[in-house]
């Protein structure tokens, strides 16, 4: 586990923040995660890389979890502080050439948007549609980084989104080309429900990729 320096922290909501870390030659593939730990011997936790492969820094998007240990402690970091970072890990790595066809559907709940943010920073010309589910509209984390016509915000707790309801409700109502490569990231309830919805729409299991956060 190597020590890295915090460059800056951006607070997006009361609970969600982006930690920018000095890159220090760290290599990863977009979609992978790192293990972070705020200090020696403390718990480590997994966080998807939010920044792109070619960005000169590493960013992670974190939501402070109620009663959480690591997500709370990382929020208290200041520029110049050190943290421990290990990785990269995982098999959610993405390169458009690795998939047949060029249709990509990304579905995220909450901070599950992080790897998709990294995908499109790395491959800005991608033919994708991103569906992001949150409770309230103010949790539309940095949506300006995505093309407006390629992102749909689903809000389940207010009507400020493009769609009022959960991502699963939204996708259920949509027509879908069964050749679409579908990527799901976030909480496991969404992922398992979405799995049924997509397979019922004819998407083969082999076209569904997932990253479970919780």
């Amino acid at each position, binding site marked *: *586990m190597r020590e890295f320096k915090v460059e800056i922290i951006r607070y997006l909501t009361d609970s969600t923040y982006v930690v920018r870390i000095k890159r220090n030659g760290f290599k990863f593939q977009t979609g992978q995660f790192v293990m972070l730990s705020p200090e*020696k*011997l*403390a*718990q*480590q936790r*997994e966080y998807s890389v939010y920044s792109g492969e070619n960005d000169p820094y590493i960013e992670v998007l974190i939501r402070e979890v109620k009663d959480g240990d690591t997500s709370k402690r990382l929020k208290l970091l200041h520029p110049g502080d050190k943290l421990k970072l*290990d990785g990269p*890990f*995982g*098999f959610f790595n993405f390169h458009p050439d690795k998939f047949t066809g060029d249709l990509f559907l990304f579905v995220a709940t909450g901070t599950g948007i992080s790897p998709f943010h990294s995908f499109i920073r790395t491959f800005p010309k991608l033919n994708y549609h991103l569906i992001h589910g949150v409770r309230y509209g103010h949790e539309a984390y940095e949506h300006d980084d995505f093309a407006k016509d390629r992102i749909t915000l689903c809000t389940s707790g207010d009507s400020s989104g493009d769609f009022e309801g959960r991502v699963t409700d939204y996708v259920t109502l949509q027509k879908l080309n069964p050749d679409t490569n579908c990527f799901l990231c976030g909480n*496991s309830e969404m*992922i*398992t429900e979405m*799995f*049924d919805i997509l397979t019922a729409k004819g998407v083969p*299991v*082999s076209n569904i990729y*997932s990253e*479970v956060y*919780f």
Partner: protein
Amino acid sequence: MKYHVITLGCQMNLSDSERVISVLDEAGYEWTDNEEEAGLIGILACSVRQKAIDKVYSRIHKWNKWKDHKNLVTFISGCILPNDHEKFLKLFDITFQMKDLPKLPEMISRYGVTTPAQLKIGIDPHNENIERFWNVKPSYQSNYEAFIPIQNGCDKFCSFCAVPYTRGREVSRPSKDILAELALLVAQGFKSITLLGQNVNSYGLDKKGEEVTFPELLRQIGEMGKRLKKEFWVYFTSPHPRDMTDEVIEVIAQYPVLAKQIHLPMQSGDDKVLIRMNRKHNMGKYRDIVHSIRRLIPEATLFTDIIVGFTGETEEQFENTRRAMEEFKFNMSYTAMYSPRPGATSHRWDDDVSQDEKKRRLHVLTEELRKYNVPYNKSLVDKTLRVLVRGADRKEGYLSSLTEGKLIVRFASNNKDLIGQFADVKVVSASDFSLEGELVKVKEAVTQ
């Protein structure tokens, strides 16, 4: 000084303990079976199971009390989570990572002064210098069965498992050392040799281009088997379906020394449960591998691991696992009722399937296994099988042995000299989990 070592947990820890014992013997310590008689006591711990960790705490409190009336040095190593490590530093005289095993005698001689430095070091997840540990010659606990560690650590992060946190990153042992250890074991007459690793078939992936791949390692072992003209069986455990390629299966099919027994953990037969388990393979991939095994090595036996009652597992999802058992007709399944393991991701999730329901699901799968084993085992009646004799059977006047596919065969004999030898046994009857046979002949076949 006399010493005693307690080993908790899995095969990996048992294999590690062979090296610990060898280092202590070399340093002049003398083994005792009785921990009360020992001046040096160690534990190879397993943070992966709560019960095993509870055992560590109860033992160390007892031993620390003994220190009031005797000189005693205690040490701990094995699979330890960072949080437990912090606590153990205060309770044990010595804590060390396996990679530092060669330094154990030195640590014992100056125990007590190392703690502050160790506190600073913590656990090194990168397993740097683990070669030093691999180079320790183990004190094998058998003279015909041995384990060779070829890989340590895991980068897969299955949500139910703490190994990636306790054993750190995947590190492959140099293939030349593995081949040298294997050649030595074969020369000493070992007959059943298991290549061991948390993720054995991801061997080489951490050193792409610098080290051979797993199928290439197997190929080199197969070639060695041909050259040495000795009979032995080489197994490997535990592989991950993700890295189980057709090339691995083809190589096993090709070489006689590569045992025709494959352990392929399935964990669940339901795609959604596999997603929650973060297994990174689906049933389609698993099915493809089994088809390749059946096509290329039809005689191979197939073993698996299954967890029942994983967080959120519905009746329908469990039914998919039962159906998968029906489809694949495993020869053996190590089925476990799910229990959250400290440190693993799923430990943070609700353990929401009741204990009674887990027991029921376990029972259903055991019955399922029994159902398919009976006809398979019966099909072996009247066949003559090559077996490795392992010891006295529970049945008086019988010896117990294992086929190349690890099926249990017992046969009438009191001849203890046969233990550790290959023999031919004709199967005369079969039950659900074992076979009974008659000794045909004992011979040292060299048919590679």
